[in-house]
């Protein structure tokens, strides 16, 4: 074996070792960053307070991406065809998610709708016309007394 060839082999081995060491160090650093991210959360996250109910009308991940489509569909059904099912209605959202502090889904970034929407910088037009508060208890009693179909569980709202 010639001298330059031996030198080349040695260098390759040395460079390999150096690269390996660097990789190991950077992997450790990445792992450390991940841990740190979980603990101190340098990235701000929306503060979502789900006030009532154990379970949404659909899977949570589905609702995060598709709640606007459900609402849009329901709105046309209700306005044009008079279909007033409660499952996907905006009123149903508000009944569960209105804050206990101010009885609304708006008001601060701690409130359900506003918290997420201000985080993702998407304007909510709903509440320029729609009430952001649950329907008062008295109105529900009147509706129920006239043979209305009202969802059964409204207890705990609007105390």
């Amino acid at each position: 074996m010639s001298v330059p060839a031996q030198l080349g082999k040695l260098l390759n081995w040395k460079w390999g070792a150096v690269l390996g060491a660097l990789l190991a160090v950077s992997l450790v650093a990445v792992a450390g960053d991940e841990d740190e991210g979980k603990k101190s959360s340098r990235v701000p996250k929306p503060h979502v307070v789900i006030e009532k109910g154990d379970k949404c009308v659909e899977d949570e991940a589905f609702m995060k991406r598709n709640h606007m489509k459900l609402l849009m569909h329901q709105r046309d059904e209700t306005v044009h065809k008079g279909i007033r099912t409660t499952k996907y209605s905006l009123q149903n959202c508000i009944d569960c998610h209105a804050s206990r502090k101010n009885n609304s889904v708006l008001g601060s970034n701690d409130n359900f709708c506003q918290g997420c929407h201000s985080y993702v910088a998407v304007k909510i037009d709903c509440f320029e016309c729609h009430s952001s508060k649950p329907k008062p208890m008295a109105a529900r009693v009147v509706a129920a007394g006239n043979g209305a179909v009202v969802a059964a569980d409204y207890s705990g709202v609007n105390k």
Partner: protein
Amino acid sequence: MSDEINVSRRQIVGFGSAALAGLALAPGVLLYDLAHGKQPDEAVSGKVRWGMLIDTNNCKDGCNDCVKACNTEAHLSGGTKETDSQWMRKVELKDMRTGRATSLPMMCQHCAEPPCVDVCPTGASFKRADGIVLVDKHICIGCRYCMMACPYKARSFVHEVVTDQNSDLPRGKGVVESCTMCAHRVDRGQTTACAEACASAGHNAILFGDLNDPNSEIAKRVATYATTQVRADLGLNPGIRYQGI
């Protein structure tokens, strides 16, 4: 063992009595039909035509109860300036020759051929299958052509930001609105807020019902007595009829 048999026997007796009750109500009469309600998941039907009959003989001069009830229901301010929303207003008529005065409420007449729908450039003004004329505020651009087209001056434009709305009657700045014939109540099988207030005041001047159902009170009254459509010459066939004018 004997318990189980008893339970099933009770169930059979229960089913039997339920079936008997059903028979007693038949033919063609269901309990929720009595309250003219529909199921929440049921779309409104063209078989129905909601309307109101206003008996001006019973409408008391100076009484404002229907207008107040409407304002309360829709959370309107009750103001009467040009920029205030008025879904319903009292009109006083006087025959100058005889001196006979008539008082009546005027609101959206829920025409069968609504001019507001004809002129709407976006399709926001529409007539529901059951004859109720509405504005889809999601589509309305606030151009106010419908306000110009309406011969009854029934529509209002919302000039100011609105807060504290009725959950069932969303209202907001920049769109046109008018009487909805309390569609949110009607869909639940209730009557309109104005008719309810008039009845509870003891005047019974406003009768709400289905003009297409020959057994309804309103259809019978319309078939028996002379009633008038305001500006019948326009051929719009309003769903609101007046008696005694």
